Structures are given as C-alpha cells and as structure tokens.
C-alpha cells in the first residue's frame, strides 16, 4: 500500500488527516450532498406518485406535464443522475484528495462542475416532463443534453484523474475502482446515448441498450460504490481490509465479467441466441466474484461486529452489502433462461432494481452521508441520533418489504401470464402487491424526510462562520452514533 492508502486505510496518522483536511473543499462536499438529498427527495416523490397510479389514485391533475409516465422517468433518472451522481461526487471530493494527498485539479472547475451538473440534471427533468425523452432505459436524457452531460463527465474524470496520475507505485484498491469508473462512465454514456439513437437500429440496438442499462449499474455505480466502501470501511473500523489478494480478485473479476452481461436484459428476444447464452454465463460468473468481495468485507468486520451497533455508517454499509450479495445471487438465478420464462417483464425485475439502486448503493451513500455531514458541517455529531435510527429502520424495512413484495408479485404475474389468465385478472391480482409497494415506499419516504430534517437541524448547529481547527480535529473521530 502507498502512504496515502496506509494513512486512510488504518486512520492511524493524525498528521496525515490534517494534511488531507486542507486538501478537501468541505463546502463543495456539503453542496454535493445537499444536492443529492434534494434530488433524492424529488425522485422518491416521483416514485411515490407513480406508485399511486398503480392504485388508480394518481393525485395530480390530468395534464401533460403531470403525466405519470413522465414522472416515472424523473424517478429513475433522478435517482441515477441526481442522487447517486451527486452523492458519489461528494464522496469522491472527500476521499480522492485524502487518498492521493493532493487536491483535485482545479477548485474553480470543481465548483463549475457542481453548478453545471445540477443544471444538467434539472434540464433533464424539465426535458423529460416536456416530452423530450429518448427511448432508452436510463438514457432518456433528452438528446440535446447528451453532449453537454458527456462533456461534464469528461471534465469530472479529468478533475480527479490528474491528482491520481501524480501517484507513483502500486495504488490502494479504492483508486483502482475510481480510475476504472471514470473511464467506463464516459465510455458507457457515449455508447448508450449516441449509438442506438444515431448509428445502430433494430435488434442490434437492443443489444446495445441492454449493455448500456447494465453498464450504467455495473461500470458507473458499482465501481464508485465499491471504491468508496474500500475507503470508508477501513477508515471507520480503523483496521485494514482483510485480504489484499481478494481485493485484487474482486476488482479484476468485476472488471472482466461485468461489461459482458448486457444482453441478459433481453433474453428470448430477437438478439442472436448464442449472445444471450454468453450473457447468462458471465452473469453467473459475476456472482462468484461478488462472493470473494463480500467475504473480504465481512472478514474485515470480523472482530469489530460491535460497530454494527455503535456506528451508524457501518450499519448502513453492511446492510447494503448483505443486500448486494442478495441481489447478485438473485441476478445469477434470474438471468437463467428457466427463470426468465416466468419473471421477465414482471415486477420481480422492478423489485431487483429497487434493491440494487436503493438497498445497495442508496444505503452505502446514505451511510456515507451520515458519516460525512457532521464532518463537513463541522458539528460534533448529529442533531438527533434517534432520528438517524428511525431513518435507518424505516428505510431498511421499507426497502426489504418492497423487495420481497415485488418479488412475489413478479412470480404471481409470471405464472398467471403463462397460464393464459386474462390480463385483467393479472392486474387485479397485482393490486394488493402494488398497495404494499406504495406503503413500503411511503415508509422509505418518511425515513428520508426524517433524515433531511435531521440534516437541516445539524446544519443549524454549525459553529459560527467557520469551524475551528480544534472542532475539526475532534470531528475526525468516527461519529459516535
């Protein structure tokens, strides 16, 4: 490990953290986290609205811009580009300078990117509501925003890759994931948003669309998520990752297999069958790789299990990892052709997507926010630990219930379709599941609003204009929540 890796990984050297402290633009981190919270609120509200449509109780008036279908776009895109991207950037602006012992390329560029990214996400939301969507799952970003967004992603990559490029010698695991993620995100975005729209048509475009949907999760969200886990977990637990060898296996295994799985989104489609078989095999291979990563992290936790109780961020992180293992195991089964006959196009897949985006990466980022917000605001801790606890339990139980509910709904729908039940009967059978989904979604929503309230009150507790150095020093200790 490098000095930076060692310093961050063990959290032993106070000198190193103070040095890193001066490298981090705390207001910027805070700004990104706030933006993430705002977009999370919007996305969750949009999702809640859409779920009410399934109960025939859509509350908004019948007007074009309130179309439930368009708000569904806001829901998914808001989560991906508003919540996840902003929270990731916040985490990166915190972690990368500490890992590299250098500030990011340019402070002004960072702030420009912050403003520009919010503008892009807002423009996307407005564009989608105005009916400018592209017919590509998670690539609905209106065509006139795509080039701007891509440019933004390139600049983000440059901003972080420059300090990383100054490192010499072997690098810490988190940095591998970050480097790969910067490269992949740009490539994936370019591929998904431009090829099917302008260059490729027909079934081949379906293959690319599948590749894009999956790569967005696998090559943008996953590596950034794991990278941040490799940074935050050792810092908070104050112990190094259990096995460097398994870290290597995990990274290179994911890097190799993840991009090869795209077509598993369109099994039994008119895409050539041998490609579909290939995608199934690589998907199952991923599950094996994922197991090594999970083992690595749980062995790291071994001996510090009390942290699950004492440290709120660790609780979020490891809950997310249990869900990660669940969702990957589920993935290995659901992409087999036998499962696909029944569950494709059903709510099973929706349940899977919610578990991945909220249950795994959402949880990691929420945990990260729980860790970061008192530190960037400069308070000794959270306004209320009880509210934090409520936030965790409401979100966790809501996600779990929603996942299980949609899972069962999917199986019911799939079998009813196969048995040639009239479509109306399938809808009628789905309504109780959709009701439970709306209720669990409400729990999640309430949990988040408690969290936002808590964050707001914490922000009010901030010391004066600028936090004193002593307070900062104190706050570098793991949050005692």
């Amino acid at each position, binding site marked *: 490990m490098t000095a930076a890796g060692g310093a961050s990984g063990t959290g032993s050297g106070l000198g190193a953290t103070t040095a890193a402290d001066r490298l981090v633009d705390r207001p910027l981190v805070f700004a990104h986290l706030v933006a993430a919270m705002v977009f999370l609120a919007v996305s969750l509200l949009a999702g809640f609205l859409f779920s009410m*449509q*399934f*109960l*025939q109780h859509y509350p908004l008036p019948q*007007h074009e811009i309130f*179309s439930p*279908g*368009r708000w*569904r*776009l806001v829901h998914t895109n808001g989560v991906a580009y508003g919540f996840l991207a902003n929270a990731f950037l916040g985490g990166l602006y915190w972690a990368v300078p500490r890992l590299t012992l250098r500030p990011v390329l340019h402070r002004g560029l960072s702030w420009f990117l912050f403003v520009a990214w919010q503008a892009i996400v807002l423009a996307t939301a407005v564009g989608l509501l105005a*009916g400018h*969507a592209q*017919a590509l*799952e998670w*690539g*609905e970003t209106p065509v006139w925003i795509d080039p701007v967004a891509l440019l933004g992603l390139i600049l983000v990559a440059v901003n972080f890759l420059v300090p990383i490029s100054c*490192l010499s010698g*072997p*690098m810490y695991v988190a*940095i*591998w994931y970050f480097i*790969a993620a910067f490269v992949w995100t740009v490539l*994936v975005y370019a591929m998904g948003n431009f*090829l*099917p*729209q302008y260059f*490729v*048509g*027909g*079934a*081949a475009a*379906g*293959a*690319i*669309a599948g*590749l894009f949907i999956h*790569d967005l999760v696998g090559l943008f969200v996953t590596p950034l998520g794991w990278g941040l886990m490799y940074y935050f977990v050792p810092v908070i637990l104050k112990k190094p990752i259990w096995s460097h060898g398994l870290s290597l296996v995990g*990274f290179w295994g994911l*890097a190799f297999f993840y*991009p*090869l799985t*795209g077509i598993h989104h369109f099994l*039994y*489609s*008119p*895409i*050539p069958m041998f*490609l579909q078989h*290939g*995608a199934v095999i690589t998907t199952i291979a991923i599950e094996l790789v994922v197991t090594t990563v999970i083992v690595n992290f749980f062995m790291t936790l071994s001996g510090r299990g009390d942290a699950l109780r004492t440290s709120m961020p660790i609780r979020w992180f490891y809950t997310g990892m249990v869900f990660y293992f669940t969702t990957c195991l589920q993935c290995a089964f659901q992409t087999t052709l036998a499962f696909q006959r029944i569950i494709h*196009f059903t709510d099973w897949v*929706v349940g899977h997507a919610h578990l991945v985006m909220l249950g795994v990466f959402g949880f990691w980022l929420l945990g990260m926010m729980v860790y970061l917000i008192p530190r960037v605001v400069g308070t000794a801790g959270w306004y209320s630990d009880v509210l934090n606890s409520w936030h965790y339990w409401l979100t966790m139980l809501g996600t779990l219930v929603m996942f299980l509910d949609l899972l069962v709904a999917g199986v019911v729908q*799939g079998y009813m379709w*196969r*048995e*040639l039940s009239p*479509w*109306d009967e399938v*809808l009628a059978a789905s309504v109780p599941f*959709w009701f439970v989904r709306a209720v669990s979604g409400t729990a999640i929503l309430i949990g988040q609003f408690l969290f936002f309230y808590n964050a707001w009150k914490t922000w009010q507790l901030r010391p004066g204009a600028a936090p004193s150095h002593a307070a900062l020093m104190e706050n570098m200790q793991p949050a005692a929540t």
Partner: protein
Amino acid sequence: MFESKAGVFLIAGLGFFALAFLVMAVLPWAIYAGEPELTVEQVAASGIVPEFVDLAERYPEQFKRAFGTVSTQTFAEALRFGHEVYVADACWHCHSQFVRPVSNEDLRWGPVSTALEYQNALQRPVLFGTRRVGPDLIREGGRRSNDWHVAHFWQPTNVVPTSVMPPYRWFFDEQGYPNKRGMSIITYVQWLGSWVKEYPYYHGEGPPSLPMAATTQSSVAHAGAGSTGGGPP
C-alpha cells in the same frame, strides 16, 4: 500491472470495455449490418393501415386539420409523430414490443417476434420495453377498433375497468375528438404488427384463402377497382 495506473486504466478501463463492446455490441451489429433499415417513408409505402383511413372517415374535420388528406405521405407523418408521442409519454415503460417464444406468449399475442421486424426507423432506439404492466403491443394493430382506442386514451378505466393506465387528455381537442397527437398514436398502435403475414388475424381467425376460378376472378376483378377505388367501371 494489476495495481498500477496504466494497468487499471488500459486493461480494465479501456481493454475490458472494448472487449465487451466488441462481443456484446459490434457482433450483433455486424450480424444485422447487411439488413437494410427501412425509413418511415419506406415503411409507409408498403401500405396504409385501414385504421388510418377509418380515422379520416370517422373524424373528417379533425383529420383534415391534423393531416389534410389521406396519403402515403401523411400516413408516414402520422407514424413518425405517433412514435414520438409513444416515446415522449414513455408508453414503452409499461408496454413491451416483443413476443417471446416461451410462456404461451404466442397464444396470447400472436406470432413470435423475429429480428428483421425491428429493422426500421420506428424502432430506433429499439422499443423492446422493460416491463409489462399493460399488454405487449407488437401485435396490437387491427386487433381493436379506433373508437375503442379513442375511448381508452380518454379514460382507460372506461373500457377496461381494472386498467392502471393513466388517461391521456392531451391527445384530445376541446370537444373530445382526438387531436393530431391522438390520431398519430392511434395510427402508430394500429400499425404495430401490420407487417406480419397473419395481420390482422393473429390467431388464425381470418378467412381462408379460397381457390379462385378464372371466370369469377375476372368478373370480380373487373368490378374490383370500383369497389375499393370509387367510381363505377
């Protein structure tokens, strides 16, 4: 190599992505590269779906305002605009457009989808879909009448009481007649599946093709022009 900047950047970042792109994107692309992708005009030139003409007959004033006259050109316009509406209102999030060869889907919807069906500009980006809240639509053309669709877009629960589809009031003018958007989306939906041999009798419920005797054929063929073409011979 496995922990160095260059290794991660070049092998994992660029190399593995390129490999996957080659296998998962370029390969299928190459497989269908020889198949021409039809433009909307070419699609329209293969024939106008009768429901487009029916719209002109049913709602003559509104149709005139939206499209003018019935022609291959206005049909293409309706298809293109209907496709835009289909994408903009995210119909494709709840309606798939492919019939799989499993789960009795062919019994429910009709012939299984084939790759070449998707080689046209109205499948760009391809509208396979991701979820079936509502039924698959790739074999919907000609299955239901225009007035059913009009009533359904106005208030889906009016014709399908269990439906969870939202109403699309912006497809209608003040008097409740479908406007250009409404007529376009109906034309687009009625077009889906019109290229398959079985259309519009996807389950074999159509008339059998009867052997034609020479005399009868000639006599009716003579009057035929009059029957569908307008004036008496």
